[in-house]
């Protein structure tokens, strides 16, 4: 009951914002808006997106144009070439690294989401003794950065015999992902009416049935958000992958690009940028399909 009331008051202001989204902007003349709004906004956009433009452009520029900035304008090319990308895919171990990254990200994400669903459900709905404390501790775990853990973890990984194995990453990444997705899912589970579960309990459903048949289907948007965010974080992770993986064929894309592509060749920039571009594309495509989920994951976790 109180939950419902809270939700209504929460929904009200945002709805008001939607209705009057114009606000008082009609008071501002077009020339004034040009200077105070569109000009700074376009500067932001250019600065934020230029590195990607430059990355993409370098990846398709022919070698002779890369370093020649006098005869042709460096900002555009009329002779796009796929030689860098071709070299990347057919003459290096890039596909393997891409596969490793995907394998590790998918494995770690699946493990973390399974663990987080159970934990979030237990904290929010089973309300066992000490649930609040454990919830707080899990949040604190989110504040422990990988940079202070990688040294002791490397000895732990070595002792477990997991050194230089992608399995090590699959087991270690959940420590970054679980705190985040548990908090995110806790928020989603709280919005599911408790009455639904009570009905199911009276009908004789077990807790497991309630979780898989009632709570999870209703929390699908939350699960997608958690999945996207976890997957992105895994793909992005660097320091653990750099520390735990040694052999070239086991590396993930970020580590491989930094370590394997940087040789003395002056023409390395083309393939380096092609590698960076191809390595970011899967995430950008995934993101393009689920922008709303991604944003709600990011802002939801912060608001909690």
């Amino acid at each position, binding site marked *: 009951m109180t939950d419902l009331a809270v939700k209504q008051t929460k929904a009200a*202001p945002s709805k*008001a914002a939607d209705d009057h*989204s114009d*606000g*008082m*902007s009609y008071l501002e003349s077009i020339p004034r808006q040009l200077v105070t*709004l569109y000009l*700074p*906004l376009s500067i932001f956009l250019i*600065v*934020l997106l230029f*590195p*990607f433009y*430059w*990355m993409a452009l370098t990846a398709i520029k022919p070698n002779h144009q*890369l370093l020649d*900035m006098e005869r042709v304008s460096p900002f555009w090319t009329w002779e796009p070439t796929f030689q860098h990308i071709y070299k990347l895919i057919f003459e290096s171990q890039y596909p393997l690294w891409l596969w490793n990254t995907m394998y590790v990200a998918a494995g770690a994400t699946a493990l*973390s989401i399974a*663990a987080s669903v*159970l934990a979030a459900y*237990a*904290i929010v709905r*089973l*309300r*066992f003794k000490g649930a609040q404390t*454990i919830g707080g501790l*899990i949040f604190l775990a989110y*504040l422990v*950065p*990988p*940079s*202070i*853990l*990688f*040294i*002791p*973890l490397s*000895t*732990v990984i070595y002792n477990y015999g997991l050194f230089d194995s992608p399995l090590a990453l699959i087991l270690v990444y*959940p*420590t970054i992902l679980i705190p985040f997705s548990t908090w995110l899912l806790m928020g989603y589970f709280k919005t599911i009416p408790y009455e639904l579960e009570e009905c199911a309990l009276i009908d004789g459903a*077990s807790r497991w049935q309630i979780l898989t048949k009632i709570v999870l289907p209703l929390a699908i948007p939350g699960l997608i958000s958690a999945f996207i965010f976890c997957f992105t974080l895994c793909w*992005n992770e*660097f*320091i653990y992958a*750099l520390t735990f993986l040694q052999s070239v064929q086991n590396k993930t*894309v*970020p580590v491989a*690009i930094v370590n394997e592509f940087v040789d003395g060749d002056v023409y390395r*920039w083309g393939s380096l940028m092609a*590698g960076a571009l191809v*390595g970011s594309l899967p995430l*950008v495509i995934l993101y*393009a399909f689920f*922008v709303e989920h991604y*944003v709600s994951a*990011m*802002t939801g976790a*912060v*608001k909690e």
Partner: protein
Amino acid sequence: MVDATLHTRRAPINEPTTWSRLKTNRQWLGYWFMVPALGFLILFLAYPLGLGVWLSFTDTKIGRAGEFIGLENYDWLRDDSIFWTSVFNTLLYTIVASAIKFAAGLYLALLLNKSLPFKAMLRAAILIPFIVPTVLSAIAFWWIYDTQFSILSWTLKKIGLISTNIDFLGDPWNARWSTIFANIWRGVPFVAITLLAGLQTVSPSLYEAATLDGATPWQRFRYITYPLLTPIIAVVMTFSVLFTFTDFQLIWAMTRGGPVNATHLMATLSYQRAIMGGALGEGAAIATAMIPFLLFAIMISWFGLQRRKWQQGADND
């Protein structure tokens, strides 16, 4: 037949087994549901955290178990000028980058909160630097900052502002500012989009009322937007400070701590000492030395800003 089913049905009702009792016991189930998550966190987070502190009191090297040597690692670090440079860099990096990220992020959020065409697309485009793996965008920055073929130097030369290429990553101070800029570039979208989510919950009628009362734009920001936004600002800035302070990827991909250790952060220095140099104990001491700074930074951004929440009469939720 009917008899048999009746019989089997009755049995569990009359005398529930221990198992079926446990199945409905919230305590017992709750603990089992927590096992996977806590297992991961204890094995790979809590235990290594403790182990890291312990390692910092030993002289462990790669491939050799260490012995307890007390505070020797820390004594050693106290006289190590490279360590103090890294502390200085980390503080500079965190303070400058976080402050600018906050200012620019808030400004961008305010801009995006106005009525705009293609708002959703704009927001999606602005978040891209946050999506793309940091290392990959750091590599792009590395190319942009190249000594000979930097596009920035080229443009500035064409405009006529400079006559020779800027050595972005080769000169200590240039390198510091360049890496700080790259960090800001990556952090602004996160700050802006999360603050925008907060801004969207502020009712426009408040602004209308204030305008009728004759409030200037600055007063509207200072007395409406800012107070209503403080809880979110507190959380966002706590995270921002935390991740900037412990940053590793950007520096490692762009400079690896160079030129002559001028851009080493504490995280990169500990990697260099522990993993590349093999001195796990010393590296762990550097990493452990980050903990007090981190706690301090979290306390400042958390309590400094969070306090305002109950001053406004909100509950301690």
